Each structure stands twice: as structure tokens, then as C-alpha cells.
């Protein structure tokens, strides 16, 4: 009875916005990049090499609205309906964009349970926040704010940096696997909204008061020349840690924290500020005395002062630090068969004081070792229509892959209407990563904790029908055992298959 309650809580949390988390890939162990979510994970391939552009990823998430929320069709016209948009928005809309390009990646498995990884990537991340009141004020006017204050405080954080890391994963105990990764960071551009307090108040007599108190730190924004050595001054560290635990023979729990770290910005640091002492404007109407005096310029003078008072002042600033968007993954996966897994992952991201959560349920199927697929459903960013998919063509030594959390509706839309507009217009979350890896040595799960379970999974009836997989599985299985035991284990498999059938099959046989 506890499980449904936990699920409800997790699903509720998933309504909140989430940043750059791509979870369809989370269960795709065929990809060397799977360790990005949890350094304790063990990829299928014992050797992986990624050259520049072996991974290109782009991410967009809008926690507030999609195109259909903002527009409607009427009399064959596309109308931007701000009332409709306003009603769709949450109190704060977060728009996140992220991208990553791998420069180099190397994954090596040593022995049966030790995995070493090296990687170097260029990453970019921006997150902007827009309060609902901004749109409400434009669409609904000021009347709704009489006697109230509208929060117009936007926020923007962003960074581009170069990341180089080394990670290891190993199994200290039979059912436990742990991993860690240390990453050195060099920043190129950084923007951090240190303070943003912009408000508009409407008094009972309709007098309007606007005040702004803002402080934005930047690095590299005003740098006219892109000198690489300058960027080496912006440096930092981050780390990933992860753990997996085989709770039941077919049920594995995993937890990880990724991108826990910071970047210190020292190069070309400029601050942009608005001081509330000067950045304020009060308009109570035209002055009666001015009107009587025929001073018609007073309103223009007020507008001029408004523009002047609200012009940010930029000045060289002091060094500052930015935390990376740290992520937390909590997952559970159930091996229905040796090649078919059902998994669920709750994820959260912490960035600049904001915690965003989401939930993904995924089905993962390996069709032999040639094709690995994933289907997922993700709840995040107040978005419920995210059907994700992932596919990797494993033609060793080449592996081509594409994965996305909201990919699947695109072809559906295309087939249905001839265009992908239906998909685009209803999308709040979209991410895709694709690339080409050089891989060798497909291995089955090799962690000691999984060793017996692999054999159990292998015994399932469905798997027997696919010979290549059986062969592959046997190889993989052999791979888990080191040295001379490999052969004997392989030979014992048929016996084990007869002895240990899944419970539901045994129950069916009894009937």
C-alpha cells in the first residue's frame, strides 16, 4: 500500500518544472553515455571511443506554455491570444535551453566490474524565468492589480563551459555497485542573476509605482576578443557519484548525484545593476498644477526620467561563483526478461535556488546486440504529453544513436497531418541527443550482483526464441565470470533454465 502513495508524491513533484535532464537515455545501457546519469552504471560495451561530435545534444524545456497555449486559429488566422496564454501560465515560467557537444570520450572496462571513463565536452546551459505577472499585466491590464503588487522580477542564468572528466565504476560488494567522476571545468561565458526584484504596484487610486532592484553578474559577455587562455581563468570542479543496488534478483535500485560543483568566474567580470533608490517611478497622473500652468511637457519629462532611471549601470565587478545545475536521480528497474526492462526514474535538478523534479517511466528492449530501443513517458515541466524514444544501431565498431524524451509524437504528427506542427505546437519539452560512437565488446551485465540474475533472465522463454541474443547473452554471461569458470557456466545454463522459471510461468504451468 505504500507504493501508490510514493508514486502519487513523485508524480505530484513531477508537475514542477525541470531543467536539463534527459531520462530516456537513462536506461539505455547500450550507449557509453549512459554513465552520465550515474557513474555506477556499466555500459554494455567494454570499449567505447567518442570522437568530436560523438554526442550532440540539445535541450529545450518550457515549464509554462506551448505554442497552442499562446495561439489559436480563428477564421483561418493564427492569433496570438494573450488572455489564453495568461490562463495557461503557472506563477513562474522557466525556459531552459542546454546543449552539449562531446569532444572526446573513452570508456574502458577492466575485468568484470571496473569501468574507467574519460570525456571532454563543451556544454551550454541557460535558464530564464518569467513571472506570470508579466504576461498578466500586458494581457489583463493593471485593473487586476489595484491594491496589489505585480511581481515582474525575471531571472536569467547561463553558462558555457568546457568540461573534462575522469570516472570510475566498480562493485565493492556482490549486489552493490558504486561510481564516481571528477570533472575539471573551464568557463567561457557566465551570467548570473544575483538579485532581481522588479515590481509594479497599483494603488487604490490607480497610481502606478515601479521599482527595480537588480544585480546581474556576467563574465565574458563584454569580452570583444575570444582569447582561449583568458577562459582558463574561469575554472571550477564538479563531481558525480552514483550507486546501484540489486535489491531483488530482478529489481535494481539506483541513485546518483550528477554535476555537483561550481565554476568561479574571474575573467572579464562585469556587473549590471539597477539601484532601487534611483530605479523607481511613480505615476499618479498628470499634475493638476502643471495642467493649469500649461506645462504639457511634464509627462514627457517623466517618461524621459523613467527611461533614464531604469537603464542598467554596468561596471567591472568582482569574481563570483556559480553552482552547476546539480541533478539527483532515483530509479528502479525491473528485468522482465533478459533483454526487456521496465524502469522508472524520479529526477530532480537544483539550480540557482530552484528545485525542479520529474518522472520518467521507460521500457527498454535490446533486439539482439544490433538494435537497442527505448520507449518512455515523462512527466515534467507541467507537461504530460512526452512520449520519448531512443534507438541505437550497434554495428560494432560503429554505433549510431538518437534519443529524446519527446521524440515519438513527431512521427505520429507527421503521419497524421503531413507536418510535424501538431507535435511542435504542443511541445513544452524537447530534447534530443545523437551521435556516433566507436564500440567493441558487447557485454551483458557483468556486475557480480547481477551475475546470477542475468542467468535467470536468460532463462525466460522469450529470450530462447532469439538465437543471436542467446549467443550474445551467453557471451556476455561468460564475460561476467572471469577466467576458467566461463565455460562451465555456459554449459550449465540449460539446466538452470529448467530449474528456475519465473514465478508467473510456474503458476501458469500449474494451472
Amino acid at each position: 500500500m505504500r507504493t501508490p502513495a510514493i508514486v502519487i508524491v513523485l508524480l505530484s513533484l513531477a508537475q514542477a518544472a525541470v531543467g536539463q535532464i534527459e531520462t530516456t537515455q537513462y536506461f539505455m545501457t547500450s550507449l557509453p553515455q549512459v554513465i552520465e546519469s550515474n557513474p555506477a552504471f556499466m555500459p554494455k560495451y567494454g570499449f567505447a571511443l567518442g570522437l568530436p561530435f560523438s554526442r550532440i545534444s540539445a535541450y529545450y524545456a518550457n515549464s509554462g506554455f506551448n505554442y497552442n497555449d499562446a495561439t489559436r486559429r480563428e477564421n483561418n488566422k493564427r492569433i496570438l491570444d494573450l488572455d489564453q496564454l495568461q490562463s495557461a501560465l503557472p506563477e513562474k515560467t522557466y525556459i531552459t535551453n542546454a546543449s552539449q557537444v562531446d569532444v572526446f570520450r573513452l570508456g574502458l572496462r577492466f575485468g568484470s566490474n571496473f569501468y574507467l571513463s574519460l570525456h571532454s565536452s563543451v556544454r551550454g546551459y541557460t535558464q530564464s524565468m518569467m513571472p506570470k505577472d508579466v504576461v498578466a499585466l500586458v494581457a489583463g491590464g493593471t485593473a487586476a492589480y489595484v491594491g496589489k503588487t505585480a511581481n515582474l522580477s525575471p531571472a536569467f542564468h547561463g553558462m558555457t563551459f568546457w568540461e573534462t572528466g575522469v570516472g570510475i565504476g566498480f562493485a565493492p560488494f556482490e549486489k552493490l555497485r558504486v561510481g564516481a567522476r571528477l570533472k575539471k571545468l573551464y568557463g567561457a561565458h557566465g551570467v548570473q542573476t544575483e538579485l532581481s526584484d522588479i515590481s509594479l504596484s497599483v494603488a487604490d487610486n490607480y497610481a502606478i509605482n515601479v521599482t527595480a532592484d537588480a544585480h546581474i553578474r556576467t563574465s565574458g559577455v563584454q569580452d570583444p576578443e575570444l582569447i582561449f587562455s583568458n577562459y582558463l581563468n574561469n575554472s571550477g570542479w564538479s563531481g558525480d557519484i552514483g550507486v546501484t543496488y540489486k535489491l531483488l534478483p530482478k529489481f535494481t535500485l539506483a541513485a546518483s548525484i550528477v554535476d555537483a560543483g561550481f565554476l568561479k568566474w574571474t575573467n572579464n567580470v562585469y556587473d549590471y545593476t539597477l539601484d532601487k533608490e534611483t530605479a523607481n517611478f511613480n505615476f499618479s497622473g498628470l499634475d493638476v498644477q502643471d495642467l493649469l500652468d500649461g506645462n504639457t511637457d511634464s509627462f514627457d519629462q517623466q517618461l524621459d526620467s523613467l527611461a533614464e532611471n531604469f537603464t542598467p549601470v554596468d561596471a567591472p565587478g568582482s569574481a563570483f561563483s556559480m553552482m552547476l545545475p546539480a541533478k539527483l536521480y532515483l530509479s528502479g528497474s525491473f528485468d522482465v526478461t533478459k533483454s526487456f526492462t521496465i524502469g522508472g526514474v524520479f529526477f530532480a535538478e537544483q539550480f540557482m535556488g530552484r528545485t525542479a523534479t520529474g518522472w520518467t517511466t521507460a521500457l527498454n528492449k535490446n533486439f539482439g546486440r544490433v538494435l537497442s530501443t527505448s520507449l518512455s513517458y515523462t512527466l515534467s515541466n507541467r507537461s504530460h504529453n512526452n512520449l520519448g524514444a531512443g534507438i541505437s544501431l550497434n554495428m560494432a565498431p560503429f554505433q549510431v544513436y538518437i534519443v529524446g524524451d519527446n521524440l515519438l509524437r513527431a512521427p505520429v504528427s507527421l503521419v497524421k497531418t503531413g507536418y510535424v506542427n501538431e507535435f511542435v505546437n504542443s511541445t513544452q519539452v524537447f530534447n534530443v541527443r545523437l551521435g556516433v560512437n566507436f564500440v567493441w565488446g558487447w557485454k551483458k551485465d557483468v556486475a557480480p550482483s547481477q551475475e546470477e540474475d542475468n542467468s535467470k533472465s536468460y532463462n525466460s522463454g522469450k529470450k530462447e526464441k532469439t538465437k543471436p541474443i542467446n549467443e550474445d547473452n551467453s557471451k556476455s554471461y561468460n564475460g561476467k565470470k572471469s577466467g576458467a569458470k566461463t565455460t562451465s557456466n555456459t554449459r550449465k545454463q540449460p539446466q538452470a533454465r529448467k530449474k528456475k522459471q519465473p514465478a508467473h510461468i510456474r503458476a501458469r504451468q500449474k494451472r
Partner: protein
Amino acid sequence: MLRRLYSLTGSLGLILLFSCVDRSDYVLDEVSLNPSMALPLLKGSLSVSDLLENADPSVVKVYPDGLVYFAYSQELESEDIRDLFTIPDEFTNVSFILPGAVLPSIPQDIKTDSISRTIGFNMDPERIDEAKLRKGEIGYVTSIFPASSSLDYEIRISLPTFISGTSVPLNAAVKGTGAISLDNYTMFLDDNNFPLKVVLVLKRRTTPVVIAPGTSINVQLSFRGFQFSYIKGFLGEQSASLDPDEVEMGDFGDLFEGADISLAQPKISLSVTNENGVPCLVDFTTLEARKEGSAPLQVILSPANPVSLNYPTVMGSSAVTAISIANVNDLLEYAPTSLGYQALATINKGITAGDNFILDSSTLKVKMDVEVPLYGHASDITLRDTVDIDLSQVDGSEIAKASLKLKITNELPLDGLVQLVLLDGNYRPLGALLGDDQVYILRGSQVDASGELLKPGLYDAMIELSKEKIDRLFGSAHIIIMLDLRTSRNASGGAQDVKFKSQYSVEIEAGILADLKLRIQ
């Protein structure tokens, strides 16, 4: 190789992506929004003193307690009394008769004979004791008969009561023809008379001179061209008629025209400033309020006409006589545009002796002072003004509904109905903007029994304007602003006297609440 593969893949991906997108779906044809805007329009406090800034400060004034009053003052100056007096010219001849003889030589000048006499100015009824001269002279002509005589002589003139500006009595030696200046001399007279002494002096000679029998030396003196700075003495009983004149009251008379007004403490007064040091009685033979198209209104004075004026007892000073007007309310109700007057001034009326003086600059100034404190009650004060408006740049159809939020905190004891009448370009009425239940906007303050402010009047309401009226407003070209005002009523609704003070203000806050339907192409 790999890079080419990437490029090819990327290009194909982009082409595929864009070929699958109907880009026309992302062209926005219209922006729709229906904001309800609450915006401030006006704010400010307008005090009476603010309004008075543009008023003529010589007309609108404030008492120390802040009570505003209208003041009008006009002064007319008369020199008619001073002009009664002039010092006439006087002449006298003196002759010295010499016996026939041979006069021996003499080593120095010798005074031989002198003649003294009293000269009097022919002035009546004045009896002058002293006169300071600004201008004047003594003309002289001396001659010897027979003219062939070679006797050398000179004439010495002595006027001991003619004192120069340096306090020196006049003594002069003359011969032939000439003039002695009396500028800045002071003549001390005895009832217009002064003493004169003329002396004959024979000049030094080294040879004897033969004087024929019948020889004489003649002197002609003329006192002439007098202009006095002042005269002192008894000036006698004399009258001067002051020229008829008019005191203009300008627009002041129109100020309350048409209104039903009762002023509590209006004051109109005449003051006469007398610089002539002589008792004077002024008889206003004409004193009346005038305006075009109406019969003049007699002004009744207090004290009653004729009025005895105060006079100064020290030269250079003046004395003021205040005369008030008994029928002030009748006068203000009459709303005159001018006051006309004519007067006869009589000095030393019935007086036979005294010490008077008059300066050549002495005047009689008649000044009218009007003070109308804004203290009283009034009704039916109607103000009208027509203003042009141009709302052609605004699309009124975008306004679905509008309300004017108005808050007026009024310290003035003035109630008012406000109406805006809309007119088209040809000044044809389109209708009133406000309904009958919306026009009572200006709420007068409450005052106590002495007219002082007790509590400001407050109007705080929304004035809703229907779509029909908004359309009418946007179709109009002119607006007549109509104000019907009256002073605050008492608790039972009756009239009561109120005061308008400079510190009283009207605080206005106006905003508009409008529902808009915007379709931006």
C-alpha cells in the same frame, strides 16, 4: 570522412525538419488581448493660493488669517488748493538829489545818503509770514541826471529779512542795469511786508568834480518772478473747485454679476490725504456709482458730506481723513464699473487767524479703497467654458466600458454641479456626458457658525460611462464645461456665511478604469 558524414547528416536532418514544418502556422496574423486598464489621470492639490498666483496681486489679497479679499484702490491727486497761491511782483523807485558844488578829490569811497522803506506784497486774504523761494529776483536800474555828469557812484541794497541759503542777509552793491537772484532765499515777512534800505556811495577820486545844480541819482527796483517752495502764515478763507473725475473699477464690478450674493463684511472707503497745512472742508457735490445702462447710485458717506479734513501741522507731513461708505451692500449689488465725483474744497472756513502753510508740492489726494472679503454666501454662480477636443487619433471602438474614478477632497465651502455637454464640429449638441445622478461632484466643506472650515467635503465615486456615451465622446469636437456653484449650506440646508481662505485646497485624484478589446494586426 567522418566530418563529411556529420555535415551530410546534419544537413539532411535540417532539410528533413524544415520540410516537415508548415511554416505558415507560425506567422501571426493578429494579437488579441482584452486588458482592463486602471490608469491614473490626474493628481494634485490646488489651493486657493495657487489659484491666486495668476491673479492681479493688487486686486486679490489675503488677510493675515488667510481670508481672501478683493481689493481695489484708486487715487486721484489734486493741486487745486496749492494753485490758489502766488506771490505777486512788486516795484519801487528811489532817488538821491545832489546839491550843486565842486567836490574835491577823496582818497576812498564814501557813503553819503541812505533811504529805508517798507515794501509789501499785494496779497489778500493771505497774510504771509515766511516764504522760501525756489525762484525769484530783484531787478535794478540806476542812473544819474544829467547823464553828462562825471561823478562816479554805486548803490548798495540791503534787505535784512531776505536770508540766503547760507543764512546771510541780502546786501548788494549795484550800478547800471541788472538783477540780483533770490533763488533759495527765505523771505521773512510781516503780514506780507518787508524792510528795504538803499545807500548811495561816492567812489574814490583824485581830482575834483563839478556837480551841477539839479543833479540826481535814480534807482528802480522790481521784485519779480517768485516761485515759492513753501509759504507760511494765515492763508485766509478760500475755495477751490476740484475738477470732476471718475475712479474706474474695471472688471471688479462684473465679478459677481448674475450671482445671488450676500457678503458679510464688505468695506468701501474713501481716504483723503491732505498735505496742505490748512484746515479744509470738502464738499462732494457729486459722488455716485455708475455703470452703463443704469441710473447712477448715490454714495452715502460716513461722516456725512461735507467732510472736514485733517491737516498736517508740520511741513512735509500729511494728514489722512478716512471716510467710509454707508451703503456698501447696495453698492456691491449695483456692481458699478466706476465711481464719479466732484468736490469743492474750502480752506479756513470761518477762520480769521492761524498758522497755515502750503508747499509748492502740496496736494490733496482722494483715494478709494474697496475691500470685499470672500465671506458670505452665494448661489447661482454659473461658470461656462467651451473647449475643443480632438480624439480622432484614438479608436474609441476599442473601449468596451469605462469608468472615471474620482476623488475630490474639497476644503472650499463650495458645492458644485458639473456637466459636460458634447458638441459636434458644427456646435450641435450631441448630449450630456454625465447623467443627472452623476453631476453632483463638487461637495462643499462643512463650516462652523463663523464660516471657518470644520470638515472637508468628500466625493469619492466611480462615474461609469456607457459604451454609448463613450462613442458619443469620441464623436465630439467640442465640450461645454458647465459649473453651477453655490456656497455650502448649513445642516438644515439653508444659506450660511462661509469664508474662503488662501490655505484651503481642493485635492483631486482622478483615474480611469477601461475595459479594452484590442485586436492588433
